[in-house]
């Protein structure tokens, strides 16, 4: 599963159960994010025991995108049988500032800085 665009690239690797997001995701609100949300939901429907969310190369994410990511974390939290690791980069300012909020939504979520 993947979404490719001149600004961003999103993919899911079945073997490592990793969602990878790269580039710049600054879409115009909830409707424009529908394909992204659908990809995330398809991953969650498979209920892998662990979802790794690799955003180390995600340079920009707007607040609508933060909303999408946060909603996904809440859905994972509701599953009980799925754990989540978010891999971020301190070299990307928005991540250093905003990723901590995901742990407030799901305390068992692991944040790995790489």
């Amino acid at each position, binding site marked *: 599963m993947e979404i490719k665009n001149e*600004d961003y690239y999103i993919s899911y690797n079945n073997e490592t159960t990793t969602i990878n997001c790269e580039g*710049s995701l*600054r*879409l*115009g*609100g*909830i*409707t*424009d994010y529908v394909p992204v949300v659908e990809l995330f939901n398809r991953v969650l429907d498979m209920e892998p025991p662990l979802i790794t969310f690799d955003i180390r190369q995600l340079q*920009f994410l*707007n*607040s*609508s995108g*933060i*909303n999408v990511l*946060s*909603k996904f974390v*809440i*859905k994972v939290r509701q599953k009980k049988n799925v754990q989540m690791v978010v891999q971020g980069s301190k*070299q*990307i*300012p*928005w991540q250093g*500032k*905003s990723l901590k*909020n995901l742990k*407030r*939504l799901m305390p068992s979520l692991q944040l790995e800085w790489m």
Partner: protein
Amino acid sequence: MIKIFGNIIEKPDESEGYLVIGFSPNSIPIQQRWRNNGLSADFLADYIISFFPKTKNNPNDIDKHIEIKGIVSYVANELLENAMKFSDKNWSFPISMQLQLYENSIGFFVTNSILDKSVAKFQTYIQTILGSDTEALYIEQLEKNATNDNSTDSGLGLLTMINDYTAKIGWKFEVNNQRTIVTTIVQLSI
């Protein structure tokens, strides 16, 4: 008539240097214009960092550049997105963003028209933000968004600026020929 909310500073004197960009909100459809917000935000961020010295191979300077570029890009993009979303498309009043560099801060002044019917709702939202624990409000907003798949606006832009970027924000509403324009003023410490 002028109404002020939050923390405002006046636009600097014209004799001082500043950068301003302007858009016509209704010249092309918003969908086509959207990508321009990110490009403009990145341009403004690149412009601002040129004022910060970078000594070759000094990791502190390089980190500072990355940090400033990231915060200016995020805040400018959010402000442009809001201006684009909420401006009155039936009026050709331009959207403008002025950027001002101070000794220890950066000021953003974004002016746009706003639909009359949206003014009261927006002012109520501003008062909610100003009177709340914004960290708690942020989580509350996310939990609310999670249960509502039909919400079209995340309502997170201003809250992330305040909580994660320690931005000071103020709003100035002015009525001009019976139409309302709003200037959003954001100050970021650097």
